[in-house]
């Protein structure tokens, strides 16, 4: 299924995505480090797609059982992660009533 060119492609993607991640996350305000972690956690639960395929293809009992538990675990991260991130971000209010978006970036 995986030729070596597929592998090289995958490596390229991994390295480039790592760079993007590094540059994007470096700019996240330290104010928001907690919601950042719960958000990346929810996004990481995209692993659910692998688990869904495992369950759906039902190639063996073991793979279906493992896949099922994996779907449950990942889905709870998606739902819980987005919910709590949203709750946290709603709490962050500015004392300036009509703060212009991106008027101030806190910290570098």
């Amino acid at each position, binding site marked *: 299924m*995986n030729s070596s060119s597929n592998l090289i492609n*995958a490596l390229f993607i*991994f390295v480039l995505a*790592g760079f*993007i*991640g590094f540059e*994007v*996350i470096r*700019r996240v*305000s330290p*104010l*928001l480090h*907690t*919601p*950042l*972690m*719960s*958000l*990346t*956690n929810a*996004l*990481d639960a*995209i692993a659910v*797609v*692998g*688990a869904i*395929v*495992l*369950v*759906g293809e039902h*190639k*063996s009992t073991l*793979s279906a059982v*493992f*896949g099922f538990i*994996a*779907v449950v675990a*990942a*889905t*709870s*991260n*998606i*739902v*819980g*992660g*987005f*919910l*709590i991130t*949203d*709750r946290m971000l709603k709490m*962050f*209010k*500015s*004392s300036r009533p009509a*703060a*212009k*978006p*991106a008027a101030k*970036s*806190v910290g570098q």
Partner: protein
Amino acid sequence: MTGEFAGGQVIIELVYLIASVLFIFSLKWMSSPTTARHGIWAGEIGMLLAICGTLLHHGIVDYRLIAIGLVLGTIIGIPLGRVAMTAVPQRTALSHAFGALCVTLVGSAEFYLRSPDISRFMMAVLSLEVILGGLTVTGSLMAAGKLQEILPQRPLTYKGQNLVNFLLLAGAVVIAVTLVLHPDSRSLFPFMILIALAFGVLLIIPIGGADMPTVISLLNGYAGLSAAAMGFVLDSKLLIIAGALDGSSGLILSIIMSKAMNRSFTNVLFGAFGQVQTSVAAGEEARPVRSATPEEAAAVLSAASRVIVVPGYGMAVAQAQHKVRELYDALTKRGVDVRFAIHPVAGRMPGHMNVLLAEADIPYDRLIEMDEINGDFPQTDVALVIGANDVTNPAARSDASSPIYGMPILDVDKAHTVMVIKRSMNPGFAGIDNPLYYLDNTLMLFGDAKAFVGSIVRELGGGHS
């Protein structure tokens, strides 16, 4: 593969591409509180698209079990999204465990489906996936247990700890190499997982509460990297991207946290933290301290024009954040400029204090990070330390023999008056004496943080208005 299937596959891949872009935007918008909530929507849409796209996958024959799994996961996820803000660190640790559990299970299932017919490179990546995943599962559960105080918070150390850990990890790597070279030795696979699980437990045993911000970040990074490895195994670009984003996030946070504790990054990577020096009792022989009552504290605060509050984990433990907001309101009403100084490792996870104070409705532009506010302490009338200890310890600047020497601290001692709310003179979590308490400009306010701040607020309210 027929043309029809190939076409379907292309659509799925395009959906994944859109999801990847949305994920990157989601993180990009987290750069500021004003745009952060767009980030959630982008993430949610991306996630929904990816899941729907996956359901189109041509090999799927059984939708019922998938549906049950999704519903069950949602039922578990909703309460996990509704925990109290003070419980966010343990919730986060628990979700790292869940994420890693998913990755480890999928990796194991793939192994049994494919082996022994599996390429060497693939087997190596798969081993990486399940080892990282396995140790993150148990490590995160241990961290969650310590944070929830189900497990003892004190670091547990024993002789040769690092050697034992190293040997265990080496054992897992040896099995991985064997599996790569001899695909027929399938029976070794469960042992590799067991070792990874055991390693996760032992890795967290020596960790104390004060090191949790670093550890949680590190586990976050591990979870991300294992997911990226899973992306290689499944040949899923979306998963590689999401894993790389999560991995770099965890890595950056670990670096920030380790810098804020003056630990080298290698020190963190190898989990050699938590060796807390318990050389207590040395310098605390009845040195005089000045203490003050709530009335006196209120008088000092109302005479001030600039106040900086320094919150720490003790504030969270005492649930004092709402009383602190009342104090903020009372002082602001009197025209006092009140700001909050946030040390990167205050609390039990990155950004912990910000979330607690935001929950108490303190505007986020009053929450100032260490590097930005440190220069302002000399012009500050009162620095009020609530439940923070080591991050204010001037020994970190001056005393080369101190275990925290070199750690960047908040320079509260440079304020005209320092007031420290503390239960007693017991040293903090790290067991290090704090010379701050014996300074001439320091007033100790002994008592429970919540009750004490409450009394100050009553004094302020009763005095005027």
